[in-house]
């Protein structure tokens, strides 16, 4: 799958597991799956697979 434009060889898994695996705090992210925003309540039941294109945008404080 592609994450932020980079190719990864991850197996099919839940989006929440993938985010945990990448050590990202899921609270402050915006996720786009194949061009559609994914709501946080769906992180646990949405499965991503090898052909998906994900954008995971991480927000940290300061502005």
């Amino acid at each position, binding site marked *: 799958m592609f994450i*932020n434009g980079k190719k990864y060889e991850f197996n099919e898994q839940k989006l929440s597991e993938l985010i945990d695996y990448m050590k990202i705090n899921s*609270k*402050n*992210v*915006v996720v*786009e799956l194949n*061009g559609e*925003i994914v*709501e946080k309540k769906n992180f646990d039941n949405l499965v991503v697979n090898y052909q998906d294109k994900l*954008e995971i*945008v*991480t*927000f*940290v*404080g*300061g*502005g």
Partner: protein
Amino acid sequence: MSIYSILGEKTVGIAGAGGLGSNIATLLTRMKVGHLVIVDYDIVEAVNLNRQNYALDQVNQKKVKACKDVLRQINKTIQIDTHDLKLTPQNIKEVFKDVDIIIEAFDLPEEKVMLTEFVLKHMPEKILIGASGIAGYESNNTITTRRVNDRFYLVGDSKSKAELGMYGPRVNIVAAMQANTAIRVLMGEMNV
């Protein structure tokens, strides 16, 4: 057509008038962008002066008032609308209904997420320019502009949190990169 006559017809919304927003608003005013919509609910504090475009005699004023006063010293004719309120999913659409571009210039990550999700999901005609990772005095060169999708740009290093300290130079770099991204988009150049 000159750049100023093109920009004079455009409207930009700025969500937050702190370190990023006060400097972005100043740059866009110098570029004579015809209409700015500036939103903030905070007041100017003395500790803000290390990075925000305010002056000592503006401490304790509402940021939207102080910001407009600064901009009026630069340009008397552009339209400047200010909103002294907290942006929420209930009011974002109404406040920014007329803008071509929304610039996210919030401080708190949860507010950044809220605005970004809302605009990408519910305002498909708007361009969004956000920021993440602007703190400290880390290298200039870790800061990038990323085009996340057709209409969402993100400036910053995505890492440096406010806890590192918020300092003028790096905040200004990001503010200027967001402002220049806005100018490019308004001029029809969509690439980063």
